[in-house]
């Protein structure tokens, strides 16, 4: 039950006094605060304070930079160099002060963190500009990221971690274009893993870890294809099927007790990824590429480039296999089917190579139909509207996509749309009524 803020504030002031007078014990006091949503409200206030501190710090930093930029030409090289390094010094002094005084407030750590991250990048970039010498984008990004990484451990600033993870993705794009060894992405990523593991052991649903999980899932999704690009040919289908299945299974095994949807990044990436891939695989054009590229890539890429990438590819498949076996032991047949996409993609490759794309097309359309129906039924059974609508949406999109593949008259299309709309509305109404009936009983 939630109280208004002023009542909550009154309660939070009164309770310690009651505990001191022996009227209540401290655990009852905590339970009362939790019952009335005090921690939730405080958490929201803290989050707001953190966000506003972050925005304030960024605006101040940008304002100072703009003022300096206006008078840039009038400064000598020495003065410009000193100005370029001043934000770095200032952010280091702030950070040292936070560490020395032991301040654990999120707003302090995150706002100094963002200022520090920007000052590292700006100092390197500005020095390059002053001397008209710039390194490649990949080298600049990598230097920046590696210098930011210690802030994650020392300041425990989540923003530095997010920046590091997403920065690595940008690095892969630039490094691939500059013919650098992008397999090193895994080495750089592993430097952050002790911190993630540390947070996971303390509290896997903690806000900072959740945000970092979002960033990690996004980073992996963006970078994997780039890293393994010239080895894969059409192997990206198996790779991304495995990646999204791994995300889904990680959620099931380690984050299944998350209360709110924002605490489920792996579930979101996993489910959406699997569904979107299934839709992509339901098209003939995708399978028509298989014969042409597969053999060509395998025979033309140098083994020195291919071997490390192939090892990474195999490691991902082994991880998928390990998690898949754990899921099999749970005997949850729908979930097992859901994460079997790599198997379906691999089989489809082989079948297409020998006899064309027809069987894979039927397979993936059937899979989508099964996914849609099962998720819809699950939504009805659990009386969860979001699940129900997710299932119906899959069915709707499947029908619409196939719908536009065939020639049907306007009247027939109109009738089908009306039926689909009625099914949507009817299913939602049914679940709502059922829920109300159960609550009234």
């Amino acid at each position, binding site marked *: 039950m939630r109280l208004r803020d002023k009542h909550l504030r009154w309660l939070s002031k009164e309770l310690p006094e009651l505990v001191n007078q022996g009227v209540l014990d401290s655990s009852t006091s905590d339970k009362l605060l939790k019952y009335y949503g005090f921690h939730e409200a405080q958490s929201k206030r803290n989050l707001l304070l953190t966000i506003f501190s972050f925005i304030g710090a960024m605006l101040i930093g940008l304002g100072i930079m703009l003022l300096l930029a206006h008078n840039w030409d009038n400064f000598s090289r020495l003065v410009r160099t000193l100005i370029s390094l001043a934000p770095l010094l200032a952010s280091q002094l702030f950070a040292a002060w936070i*560490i020395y005084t032991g301040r654990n407030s999120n707003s302090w750590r995150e706002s100094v963190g963002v200022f520090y991250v920007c000052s590292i990048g700006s100092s390197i970039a500005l020095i390059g500009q002053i001397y*008209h*010498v710039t390194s490649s984008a990949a080298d600049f990004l990598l230097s920046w990221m590696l210098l930011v990484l210690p802030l994650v451990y020392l300041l425990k600033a989540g923003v530095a971690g997010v920046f590091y993870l997403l920065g690595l993705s940008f690095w892969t794009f630039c490094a691939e274009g500059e013919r650098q060894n992008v397999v090193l992405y895994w080495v750089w990523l592993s430097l952050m893993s002790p911190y993630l593991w540390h947070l996971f052991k303390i509290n896997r649903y903690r806000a900072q870890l959740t945000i970092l999980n979002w960033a990690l899932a996004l980073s992996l999704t963006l970078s994997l294809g780039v890293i393994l690009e010239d080895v894969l040919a059409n192997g990206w289908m198996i790779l991304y099927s495995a990646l999204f299945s791994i995300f889904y299974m990680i959620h099931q095994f380690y984050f299944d007790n998350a209360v709110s949807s924002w605490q489920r990044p792996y579930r979101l990436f996993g489910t959406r990824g699997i569904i979107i891939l299934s839709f992509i695989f339901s098209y003939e054009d995708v399978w028509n590429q298989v014969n042409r590229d597969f053999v060509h890539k395998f025979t033309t890429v140098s083994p020195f480039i291919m071997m490390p990438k192939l090892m990474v590819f195999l490691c991902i498949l082994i991880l998928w296999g390990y998690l898949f076996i754990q899921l099999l032991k749970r005997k949850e047949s729908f979930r097992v089917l859901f994460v079997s996409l790599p198997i379906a993609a691999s089989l489809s490759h082989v079948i297409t190579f020998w006899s064309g794309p027809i069987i894979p097309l039927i397979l993936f359309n059937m899979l989508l139909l099964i996914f849609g129906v099962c998720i819809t039924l699950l939504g009805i059974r659990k009386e969860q509207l979001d699940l129900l609508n997710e299932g119906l949406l899959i069915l709707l999109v499947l029908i619409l996509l196939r719908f536009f593949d065939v020639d049907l008259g306007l009247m027939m299309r109109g009738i089908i749309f009306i039926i689909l709309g009625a099914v949507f509305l009817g299913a939602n109404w049914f679940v709502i009524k059922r829920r109300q009936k159960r609550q009234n009983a």
Partner: protein
Amino acid sequence: MHKRLLVFILVALLQWFVPGLMIFKYESTLLSGKIFRFEIAPVDPYDALRGRYLWLSFKENTLQERADLKVTRGQYIYVMLKTDDHEFARFSDYALEPSRGKNYLKLQVQYNYNGKIGVEIPFRKYFVNETSASKAEIIYNRGARADSKSEAYVLVRVKNGNAVIEELYINGKPLPELIKAEMLQAQ
């Protein structure tokens, strides 16, 4: 807490090391590097200004491949420099290792076609202030046009394979001076 602070101080020093090393390298090159004049090639007038820098184009950007030393795209080579009769920099030879006592640049091979090697010049960006950027572009394009009688070049200091632009000159005058004069005239 003090242990963490000590570690942080070490990290902070490391973070100073990167820009510090850059400054040391560039200042050392500017103070004691050999001067070379690189002649600017004509540019596409709509592409000269990218963001807040002028994209420089140089006449000297290719060399002949040696029969005994084949190179491939993406490979780094050490290109020796000399000056011609007009005192502009020219590429004389290349090797896979730097040569002691000679002035050279470490350049990346962009293409190798019919025995002609194209190399990426590392000092192609000349940063300008945003407020004077449009003036800089006009002056630069005027000086670098194919039919221009202007002499446009970049003064570069070279030391141990590193190159740093000292200034961009058009008709013997540095670009910042020309921009200032143009802006005063416009007022």
